[in-house]
């Protein structure tokens, strides 16, 4: 199981504070962080990349896509990070299936609008996750032919199973859970009992959302780490 935290709302967060936060997250041995921003999360990602070494970084785009420019930025960021970047597509990004397809094509090295994007990502394929709310995940996965999978929020073992059954088993899930003890226990129980369902799929990622939003924490200038290691 890979343990991450997020979404970390980094909109307006000073770079020094962001750098300190991601370094802190890495120091606590999280596997990845999920960055979200109304502005330009890829730039926040570029700061995070420079201040971490092993932490995987999910960047969420929740705006209309600009396939070629987004692909260029993500590929360079993935190279700078030596292959630690993943992409989360939020609801606004998913509104235009054509743009999603173009972005995926550009990331895959296909010719899009007459050109190919270089450099290629450091990873053979950049993980892309479509963020799913309570809607139909099967439709989401099929519509966008997402390579990596869907990101869903769950709270109980039953929800894990329900979400898993909504989409094809070949489509990995990125699970976002609350950090209540019940949710953690439920998820771990689910993973243990249904290893054929979860453990066998190498792409599954599990995130933990801090009990209070990181933005509120930062605004309150709470110098204590907003994150706690889940054991």
């Amino acid at each position: 199981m890979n343990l991450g935290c997020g979404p970390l709302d980094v909109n307006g967060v000073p770079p020094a504070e962001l750098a300190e936060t991601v370094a802190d997250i890495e120091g606590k041995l999280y596997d990845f962080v999920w960055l979200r921003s109304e502005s330009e999360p890829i730039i926040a990602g570029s700061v995070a990349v420079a201040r971490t070494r092993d932490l995987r970084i999910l960047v969420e785009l929740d705006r209309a896509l600009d396939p070629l420019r987004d692909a260029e930025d993500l590929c360079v960021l993935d190279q700078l990070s030596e292959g630690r970047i993943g992409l989360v597509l939020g609801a606004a990004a998913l509104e235009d299936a054509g743009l999603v397809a173009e972005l995926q094509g550009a990331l895959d090295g296909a010719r899009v609008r007459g050109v190919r994007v270089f450099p290629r990502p450091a990873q053979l394929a950049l993980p892309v996750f479509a963020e799913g709310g309570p809607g139909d995940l099967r439709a989401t996965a099929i519509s966008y032919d997402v390579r990596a999978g869907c990101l869903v929020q769950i709270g109980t073992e039953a929800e894990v199973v329900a979400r898993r059954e909504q989409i094809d088993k070949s489509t990995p899930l990125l699970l976002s859970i609350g950090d209540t003890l019940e949710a953690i226990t439920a998820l771990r129980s689910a993973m243990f009992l249904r290893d054929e369902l979860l453990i066998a799929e190498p792409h599954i990622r599990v995130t933990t959302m801090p009990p209070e939003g990181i933005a509120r924490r930062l605004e309150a200038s709470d110098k204590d780490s907003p994150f706690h290691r889940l054991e």
Partner: protein
Amino acid sequence: MSSAKGQRPIPKLGLGLVSLNTSPPCDFTWTASHRRAFVDTRRAEALGLESVFLSEHHFVADGYCPSLMVLAGSLLAATETLNIGTAALLLPLADGERLARQVRSLGSLVERLRLGIALGYRREEFMGLNVERRRRGKLMDAMLEELLKVLEPEQVIICTASEPGLDRALRFDVPMLIDSAVPMTRALEWGDEFRAQSAHELTLIRECWVSDDGSAPPEAVAPHDFAFWQYIGWEYTPTWEKEGEGDIDPLLDPESERLQQATSAEEKWFRQTPEDFADFLAAIHARGFDRMVARIAWSGVPLDHSVMGHLAAISEQGVAA
């Protein structure tokens, strides 16, 4: 570089151009090239250099960096005092609103950003990004006005290889950088004209090779340069130079005169001893240049050759930034 009383003043010294591309026979992967950018930039800061400049192209198979704001963000976050410049970000090819958001997202790091901008020329880039190439001048003016709303004038640099760029820098009252493609005599003339009308920073960029005896670049470097021009250099050749030459670019022919000329040490490299280089720096400072960017980074050529490897020897020549 350290300063000392009584030494000849020289311009601020920057290095470049970091473009992250690799081509045969360079055995760097793209990932290694990107990793090296962090190492080189931190080393430049530790050595006391003023800036490192980055360069942009799109859709080139050698991986030339297309995303300068992402690269700049990482390098700014990885350093503490070094200025990170671009020479150049191709402004007409950018999405103005996106660029403004990216600049704002840098927060306090933006204070060390020196955003050099240029028109761009490769047709493939304009086609791919759906920008009308013939409108690039007007786009540049319009986008520059918007850019000046999010950056201080001193942070925006017009990078130019032609006289309209000089006019634009004066018209918008911003700093100017004269590209290495401009012959030295003309660069000095433009510098004089700019200095006579503007108090803003004036930067010169030259392709430099500094060695103990002023000799040509060593054999370890020349093959990279030759191969670059043979395999990929034609991608960067201005379109107007390619037109009318048939389907096969002569640079693909190893025996072609153009290839030999492009890689000739006499034509390409600005070769100097540390003493010559120090004299040159002092001379252009006296001529009104505020910054000299030594272009010493090419695909496969370690940045610690040339100027960076001879800083101590240069500073011993009685100069101080």
